[in-house]
């Protein structure tokens, strides 16, 4: 949420900058005989006569590059296909999934995102699987391919700040992915609405929106990681491979390694409750270094309102609880650490690539 607000704010700042152009760099523009438009007249100016802030020009170009590229078309078709596949299985199984008396019965609509019949993973599992791929493939050649084509030194000798390039690349990919997720999410809602005929409640809708925002944050992490690799490595193939390696490491090997480490420490069945809780805590802490784990914990909580804790619960804590769904606010409170963790990882990647890019020497090719 904060993230989108930050983006919105940035866009707003950009607008302000754009409006102030006339006054800020006025003397230069007069010298160059540029037209200086007072901002009050801005509405009357034709679209192609407007002077846009360079950052917006770059952002537009990056977005149109993404949208036109084959890569993006392929990715969209893969994601759309899996999305509709999982929607199909969800719709065919939704009748059997709802049992009377189930606390989640009231969240009928959310089941669309979580149901699977075992042959096909559900929508949110798909997103957690494909998200990294999306992020990596839109970012892995952000900087180094420009450098290899001899564009980097030409663009950076234009009167723009160096970070504009990095920000524009990141923001453009994020906007493209964000739009795609929003569209897909809403399409699922729409199809669900048409097929089952029950509209989502306001809370369900909010949960779905938070889920979409969460998946955008998740993809933003992978995007930043791959931009970081694209700053560090000269060859796009190397950076793509490093991104995929990190993804595979987390999704396949990290869990195994954690099991390997924690198994010798596993308490016996006769151990005290405290020991068992301590052990589970350690295991979970180790697992939570993995962005996939953070994402799946957060999405589970958001899409299944009956989940009330992500850590181990003792019998005393459970004693006397009424099985029922949590309100949205409480679910958000539970996933807050996970979201913060994902954001922190994203920002960390961004900072590293920022620092190494800002001071680097830009040679042609």
């Amino acid at each position: 949420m904060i993230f989108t607000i930050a983006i919105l704010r940035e866009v707003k700042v950009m607008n302000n900058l754009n409006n102030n152009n006339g006054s800020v760099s006025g003397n230069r523009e007069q010298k160059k005989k540029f037209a200086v438009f007072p901002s009050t007249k801005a509405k009357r100016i034709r679209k192609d006569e407007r002077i846009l802030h360079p950052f917006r020009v770059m952002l537009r170009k990056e977005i149109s590059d993404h949208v036109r590229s084959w890569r993006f078309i392929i990715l969209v078709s893969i994601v759309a296909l899996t999305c509709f596949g999982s929607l199909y299985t969800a719709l065919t199984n939704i009748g059997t999934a709802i049992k009377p008396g189930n606390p989640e019965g009231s969240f009928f609509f959310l089941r669309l995102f979580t149901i699977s019949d075992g042959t096909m993973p559900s929508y949110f599992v798909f997103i957690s699987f494909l998200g990294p791929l999306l992020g990596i493939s839109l970012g892995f050649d952000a900087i180094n391919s420009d450098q290899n084509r001899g564009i980097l030194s030409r663009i950076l000798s234009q009167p723009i700040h160096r970070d504009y390039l990095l920000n524009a690349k990141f923001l453009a990919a994020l906007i493209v992915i964000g739009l795609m997720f929003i569209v897909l999410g809403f399409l699922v809602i729409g199809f669900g609405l048409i097929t089952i005929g029950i509209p989502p409640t306001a809370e369900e809708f909010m949960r779905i929106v938070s889920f979409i925002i969460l998946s955008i944050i998740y993809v933003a992490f992978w995007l930043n990681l791959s931009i970081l690799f694209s700053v560090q490595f000269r060859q796009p193939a190397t950076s793509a491979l490093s991104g995929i390696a990190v993804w595979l490491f987390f999704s396949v090997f990290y869990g195994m390694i954690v099991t390997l480490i924690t198994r010798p420490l596993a308490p016996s069945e006769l151990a005290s409750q405290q020991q068992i809780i301590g052990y589970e805590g350690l295991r979970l802490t180790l697992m939570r270094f993995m962005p996939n784990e953070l994402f799946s914990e957060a999405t589970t909580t958001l899409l299944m309102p009956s989940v009330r804790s992500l850590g181990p619960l003792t019998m005393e804590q459970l004693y006397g609880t009424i099985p029922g769904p949590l309100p949205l606010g409480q679910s958000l409170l539970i996933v807050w650490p996970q979201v913060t963790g994902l954001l922190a990882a994203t920002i960390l990647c961004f900072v590293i690539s920022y620092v190494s890019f800002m001071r680097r020497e830009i040679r042609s090719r």
Partner: protein
Amino acid sequence: MVAENIIELTDLTKRYGSFTAVNQLNLAIGTGEIFGLLGPNGAGKSTTILMILGLTEPSSGSVKVCGYNPSSEPLEVKSRAGYLPEDVGFYLNRTGLDNLVFTGRLNMLSEKKAEEKAKELLVRVGLENEVDKKTGKYSRGMLQRLGLADVLIKQPEIIILDEPTLGIDPRGVREFLKLIVELSREEGITVLFSSHDLHQVQQVCDRVGLFVGGKLLAEGDIQSLSKKLFSNSPYTIELEVSAGTRSDSDNPGNGISIEQMNKMLGNLEGVLAVNKINERFQIECSHDITSAIARKVIESGAGLEYLTRKEYGLNDIYYRYFEGGEGHE
């Protein structure tokens, strides 16, 4: 306040680890000048250019471009200086026009204005037939010309060209250089031009800086450089003389010996030595006495068939310096 020198480098040094790429460079380039940075590969030309543009930071020393420091005020410098990198690249899936419009808009032009300007420049650099062709299909020379248009769209005060003629055929090179000279003269643009090719630099540059091993060995116009270098005999005048009248000029130089030649010249001031090579006389002089020599020859009644003042080209300068440079190490 108008600074007389548009680019000023003071004690500029760039080190990469223990390797010094540019060493204590002092250089001033005046407004409207065409300055050639000449040197072999790896002499530190590109590094100097990168430091001028703020694309890399100097280890020590200072750079001033139009009175601005490229490291702390990069936008001021980059909006005044256009840079054509060595082996320039464009967005290959966009047309030449699109690429130019994009650059124009990064320089705060409106879309309409950028497009007008881009079209005008494409005509100027001779790419009017390739406007809507994707740059991926451009040839090397076309890309280079598009690069020049790309530099000009921001209406720069300085153009910095890093090895701009690399990989273009001789005709392309000639046209390209002509374009640069025209631009510089018409619009008063200062041009900094790096090359390892002597002849190109000689053709276009007002002043030359010789770069070897990160050091500026000499700077000045070509005459003063050759004067400095060949101080013992800066001028050589080559002439061919036929005895008697024009009618028996079928046999040029026939019969005229060095002694006769010496006699002919009399005790002309400035003559250092007279040699005869392949029927032609080489007269080494301390200063320019071409017209005096011609007068003497005509007065003596001999036919003057051929007369030229041999200037030392950059080639001679280049080799002499490099020999010297290698000798030091």
